[in-house]
């Protein structure tokens, strides 16, 4: 088992190193834009006042950008390391007769990653707050956020493509050769295990790291822009970070309590529902978080200037945050209704497949996805309305402004996103549970431990228990299904923050627009539905989200074609196991297509963001809102349809025990369709939206300055022409992302 886990880890390392090189190139491009912006185009106050020279200022921002990229990359690395340790240990623990450790080890691994991620993030952000001079801190935060989302986007996209090429390549062999999951003779299995880590483990860690950072930066910038008075601003920032710090404590506390309860309840049980302890943990943490939110807010805000400016502010803000925290606990419950092996939707997928074959499997899974998008969308609307209702009660002065300026609802939505993330490490922990359980099952199969002569006696002698291979295998399979469900529950939480967080970030640019008065005396801000650029922006956002879904899945499809072709040619069913060289060749195919796909996607995102920002600021802001909204629904639909397909296959394999039947074949087809749905396209949308927003903000500011300059001296605004050039480049790469990625025969 140790060897298998080590092989997986070594392959992961090779992959991550390659990704690292790619990130360096990407950083060079983004870094050049940042340097151009802060070095030439903008006029930072710190430089103007002579506090710091311009080169030093730029170096400082770039340094924080590098730290952002390194943070995303570093936590991803840690995640892979711990997962490849935990997978083999879970697998071995399954041999004991009790299923408890099969659940507890992956969860423990998840908590470890979750805590590390949040703590590293907080230390970096608090460091900027406390030790970087105020004039430079804002720019440092922006650099940090861009770096984080750059790293997360790259890791999400490439990992998502990689993992699903391998997964489909390995899975389809089940139908072609009628072999089992993780059959050691299949050279695609090692790549599949690597992919589980490269995609499903690296993804959420890097993504989580980015999400926490960017939401924080969005809230800080809102507070500074909308709240008047340095004392109030400082108090609110400290309040937000005090709650974030306590979130670390809340999560550890809830985890330990839950661990004790679960241990007492299930340690001796021969059988229990693996989803139950995770569900309990999520609910316990959310309730404790809400209590802590009210407590800390009372402690920090109930006395002092803020309270006199707005009586009862502490409970109003706590209520808004709690709306988000409740959403983060309810969304997993909603998700389970569509993706859990026991849900009626998944049952429906299985039933449909029995008579209707793969066609009805696919239709039924899409239905689950569509319905989930409806219900979760409505849930978010309901809870955001709750937040809105609370801020509507805020005191309004004669200027029509509240303590949070003229747009308190935007701040409320930002706080809802903050509440979404209130469970911090726990959300990441239940998400990281899936890849460990998935790998544990593979390690078990690959090691073929049960076939070693005298292994029973050996384990008994060395470890003091008699291994039960049959039961161990069953537990691992069942646990994998719970992993699938919880992997599906964390996705909507992360993507949900993208929308709400992006709205708050866009707010900065909206304020700039509002305060920019043209020579005609009109404000530049014109975001109304009667404004054509707004409608066009909404349309464009939708278009880009659909392009992205297509381009990322095209990379998976071509890559999977190559992988399947290679595996079919090289698989040796008369041998005991696949040749290690063949396994490596499959890994190489996955890497090659992941990188090719990612190049195209990044080139498009990069050029189109610049193009749209240069066209017109109102158009651009509408575009950003639109990709967030379209992206949210596309991601929820894809993630849950994929989850339903995956678990329908599990039901057939584990509960019905009908492997190899036509029903099984149909559900395997469903699962392979769902693979790029749930683990490639849907998950990459969150960092892509954030990256476009953050990076686009800088471009938009340049564009606004050009527009104002042209307006004040009556010259032609060159912005739209620059935009056209970038649009042409972008469209070229859009073309390439399909026509250049076609299957070559």
């Amino acid at each position, binding site marked *: 088992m140790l060897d298998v886990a080590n092989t997986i880890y070594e392959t992961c390392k090779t992959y991550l190193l390659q990704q690292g090189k790619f990130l360096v190139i990407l950083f060079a491009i983004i870094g050049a834009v940042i340097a151009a912006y802060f070095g030439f185009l903008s006029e930072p106050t710190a430089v103007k006042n002579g506090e710091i020279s311009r080169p030093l200022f730029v170096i400082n921002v770039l340094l924080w950008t590098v730290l952002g990229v390194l943070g995303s990359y570093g936590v991803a690395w840690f995640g892979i390391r711990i997962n490849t340790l935990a997978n083999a240990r879970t697998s071995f623990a399954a041999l004991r007769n009790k299923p408890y450790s099969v659940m507890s080890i992956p969860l423990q691994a998840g908590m470890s990653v979750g805590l590390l991620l949040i703590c590293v993030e907080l230390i970096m952000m608090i460091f900027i707050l406390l030790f970087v001079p105020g004039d430079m*801190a804002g720019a440092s935060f922006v650099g940090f956020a861009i770096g984080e989302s750059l790293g997360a986007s790259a890791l999400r996209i490439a990992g998502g493509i990689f993992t699903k090429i391998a997964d489909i390549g390995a899975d389809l062999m089940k139908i072609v050769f009628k072999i089992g999951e993780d059959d050691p003779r299949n050279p695609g299995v090692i790549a599949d295990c690597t992919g589980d880590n490269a995609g499903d483990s690296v993804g959420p860690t890097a993504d989580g790291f980015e999400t926490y950072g960017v939401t924080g930066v969005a809230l800080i910038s809102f507070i500074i822009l909308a709240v008047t008075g340095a004392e109030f601003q400082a108090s609110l920032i400290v309040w937000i970070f005090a709650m974030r710090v306590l979130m670390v404590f809340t999560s550890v506390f809830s985890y330990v309590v839950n661990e004790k309860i679960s241990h007492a309840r299930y340690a001796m049980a021969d059988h229990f529902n693996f989803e139950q302890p995770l569900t309990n943990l999520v609910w316990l943490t959310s309730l404790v978080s809400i209590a802590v939110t009210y407590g800390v807010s009372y402690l920090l805000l109930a006395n002092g200037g803020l309270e006199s400016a707005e009586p009862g502010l502490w409970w109003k803000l706590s209520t808004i945050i709690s709306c988000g925290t409740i959403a983060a606990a309810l969304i997993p419950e909603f998700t389970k209704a569509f993706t859990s092996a026991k849900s009626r939707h998944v049952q429906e997928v299985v039933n449909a497949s029995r008579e209707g074959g793969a066609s009805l499997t696919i239709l039924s899974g899409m239905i689950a996805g569509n319905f989930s998008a409806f219900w979760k969308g409505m849930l978010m609307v309901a809870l955001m309305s709750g937040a809105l209702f609370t801020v509507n009660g805020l005191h309004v002065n004669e200027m029509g402004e509240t303590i949070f300026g003229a747009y308190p609802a935007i701040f409320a939505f930002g706080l809802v996103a903050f509440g979404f993330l209130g469970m911090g490490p726990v959300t990441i922990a239940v998400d990281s549970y899936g890849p460990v359980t998935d790998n544990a099952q593979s390690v078990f199969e690959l090691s073929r431990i049960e076939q070693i002569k005298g292994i029973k006696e050996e384990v008994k002698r060395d470890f003091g228990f008699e291994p039960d291979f049959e039961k161990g295998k069953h537990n691992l399979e069942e646990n994998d299904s719970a992993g699938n469900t919880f992997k599906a529950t964390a996705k909507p939480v992360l993507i949900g923050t993208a929308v709400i967080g992006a709205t708050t970030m866009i707010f900065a640019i909206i304020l700039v627009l509002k305060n920019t008065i043209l020579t005609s005396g009109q404000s530049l801000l014109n975001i109304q539905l009667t404004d054509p650029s707004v409608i066009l922006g909404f349309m464009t956002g939708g278009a880009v989200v659909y392009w992205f879904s297509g381009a990322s899945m095209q990379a998976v499809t071509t890559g999977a074609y190559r992988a399947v072709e290679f595996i079919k040619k090289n698989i040796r069913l008369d041998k005991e196991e696949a040749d290690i060289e063949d396994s490596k060749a499959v890994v190489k195919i996955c890497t090659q297509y992941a990188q090719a796909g990612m190049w195209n996607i990044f080139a498009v995102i990069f050029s189109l963001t610049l193009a749209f920002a240069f066209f017109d600021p109102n158009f651009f802001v509408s575009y950003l809102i639109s990709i967030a909204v379209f992206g949210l629904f596309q991601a929820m639909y894809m993630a849950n349809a994929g989850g339903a397909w995956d678990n329908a296959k599990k039901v057939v394999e584990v509960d019905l025990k009908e492997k190899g039947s036509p029903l099984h074949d149909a559900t395997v087809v469903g699962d392979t369709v769902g693979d790029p749905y749930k683990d490639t396209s849907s998950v990459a949308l969150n960092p892509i939206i954030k990256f476009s927003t953050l990076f686009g903000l800088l471009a938009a500011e340049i564009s606004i300055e050009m527009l104002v300059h042209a307006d004040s001296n009556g010259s032609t605004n060159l912005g739209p022409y620059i935009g056209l050039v970038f649009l042409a480049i972008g469209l070229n790469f859009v073309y390439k992302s399909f026509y250049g990625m076609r299957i070559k025969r």
Partner: protein
Amino acid sequence: MRRLLSITAAMLLPWVAAASEADLKVPDLRQSYFDSVGMNGHSLLLWGIIIIVLGLAFGIWQFLLIKNYPLTDRCSM
């Protein structure tokens, strides 16, 4: 009057445009004071770092626990 206003606005423009997200001035957190804990925001967050470090230690401890779980190196790969 309106013309005058717009001229003033135009003169202020470079400043307005620069006061954007990338040029946020983060306030000195010492300016906030919390009676209930008897310290300013700066000190409060400094104390917070201790909690974070403890959380980090817990995470690393879990990592080490997992690393030391029993495992057989027996397998045929």
